[in-house]
């Protein structure tokens, strides 16, 4: 992890309440798929943890949804501004040797999966992507995944685009049978996937204070050993499927 001053090269709305920001650190660290950055914002005490959506030679992108005052302030940040960022944080998705993989993203859980898809595509793994959104206006990155060469299927809760319903409805509708999944999204979606699949990785979201494993604000329990716990910011946010207990 480094403490960096990142220049904002762009910050644009790409879907309803959803923004994409390009950041350029003074010295680009090695950021792996699934890792996140912790951004300080003027007027707010705690940093905002946001996952990295794609990594380039000396820049990276984040995609975030405006859900509260902090992300609203982030959406107002102008091109050319400098942000104080701790980066990168957390345990990444391992890009395993696989013939094929199913990537499942829900809403603002979609962004970190884009870098996962890129890296799998670079290794010639066959990548199938299923993305779930509330509605067509909230949808983003369908084309971006297609350009990488992925098969892409969309589900919307209101049926305004793709399959009506959840990502699991889309997987059933398109008869997708791939047993290894890489996923990120809302807790209820992850819980459903945790019950349906046994191979792959899930990435979790949590309220955090420090983001580096010191404050114990974002812990979860092991699914078997109740004495064992993990910090979502440190041992996570990515965990092997089945590892985390969903009841706490």
């Amino acid at each position: 992890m480094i403490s960096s001053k990142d220049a904002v090269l762009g910050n644009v709305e790409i879907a309803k309440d959803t923004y994409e920001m390009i950041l350029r650190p003074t010295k680009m660290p090695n950021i792996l798929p699934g890792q996140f950055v912790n951004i300080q914002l003027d007027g707010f005490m705690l940093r905002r943890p946001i996952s990295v959506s794609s990594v380039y030679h000396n820049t990276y992108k984040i995609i975030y949804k405006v859900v509260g005052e902090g992300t609203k302030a982030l959406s107002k940040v102008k091109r050319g501004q400098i942000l104080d960022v701790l980066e990168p944080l957390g345990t990444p998705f391992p890009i395993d040797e696989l013939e094929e993989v199913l990537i499942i993203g829900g809403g603002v859980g979609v962004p970190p999966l884009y870098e996962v898809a890129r890296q799998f595509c670079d290794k010639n793994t066959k990548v199938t992507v299923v993305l779930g959104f509330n509605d067509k206006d909230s949808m983003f990155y369908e084309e971006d995944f297609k350009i990488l060469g992925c098969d892409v299927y969309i589900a919307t809760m209101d049926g305004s685009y793709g399959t009506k319903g959840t990502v699991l409805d889309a997987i059933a509708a398109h008869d997708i049978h791939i047993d290894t999944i890489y996923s990120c999204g809302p807790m209820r979606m992850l819980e459903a996937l945790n019950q349906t699949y046994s191979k792959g990785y899930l990435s979790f979201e949590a309220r955090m204070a420090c983001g580096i494993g010191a404050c114990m604000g974002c812990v979860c329990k092991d699914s078997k050993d109740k004495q064992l716990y993990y910090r979502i910011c440190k041992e996570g946010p990515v965990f092997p499927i089945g590892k985390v207990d969903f009841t706490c």
Partner: protein
Amino acid sequence: MLEIKLPGLDLKNPVMPASGCFGFGREYAELYDLSILGGIAIKSATLESRFGNPTPRIAETPSGMLNAIGLQNPGVDKIIETELPFLKQYDTQILANVAGATEEDYIEVIKRLNDCPEVHAYELNISCPNVKHGGIGLGSDPKLAANITRMAKEVATKPVWVKLSPNVTNIVEIAKAVEAAGADGVVLINTLVGMRLDLHTAKPIIANTTGGLSGPAIKPIAIRMVYQVYQAINIPIIGVGGITCAQDVLEFLYAGASAVQVGMYNFIDPYICPKIIEELPAVLKKYGCDSLQDAIGRSHR
């Protein structure tokens, strides 16, 4: 210029991270050499391991945050086995924060830590607002606070500092009571009990309902309490509450603190302690203090 000798703590500088805001130092040791620090108040040790409270445990507030971690820790034996040997490699003073559900728990934890040369002094946590038993219950009543202090002093082979709660009508009364019971020093203040409600659900954001408020929001309260307690007792004070810079440290020293702890700001800027230590000599000088002693209690002279 920054050295100070306090009961059990031979500090090369007066800055240490506060208990619960630094774990056992491992995460920060990846970022800088912990030997820079005057001391470290390590995370509370309880007799048994504790998972702590359900999540969410954190909520942001104006100029601060609420937390209700609930004394999550691996238990004193595991701390002795794995954390103290890790800390031993650093040239810094260790203040072991001790907590429990009953008085007997505190005593047993102290007994087990007595034989650990890595621990230089104890910090009795009678002020945690986030646990049902022990914690703040013992720190809100002068008689109970004095009693646990006396019991701790009877068994402790190292100096005993008592960390006081600000959630009381009269903190001076509590400070005087623990001094009379033999405390070697006091640490003030712990967090203030607070709440935040979710606008959509109308329910508390923190699963524990209430949490402890920390950060710059509580600094004026901490300064006031250090100032009042300094006038009433003769044992040293470690000041804590909302410190974000060397100027804040100076304010605590003026009020009567002999050393300080930095709490939540470690979460915002993980390098804050080394930064403050580096800047402190220039800040002392700027305001006409040739030594730490010049600054300690200056507002009372």
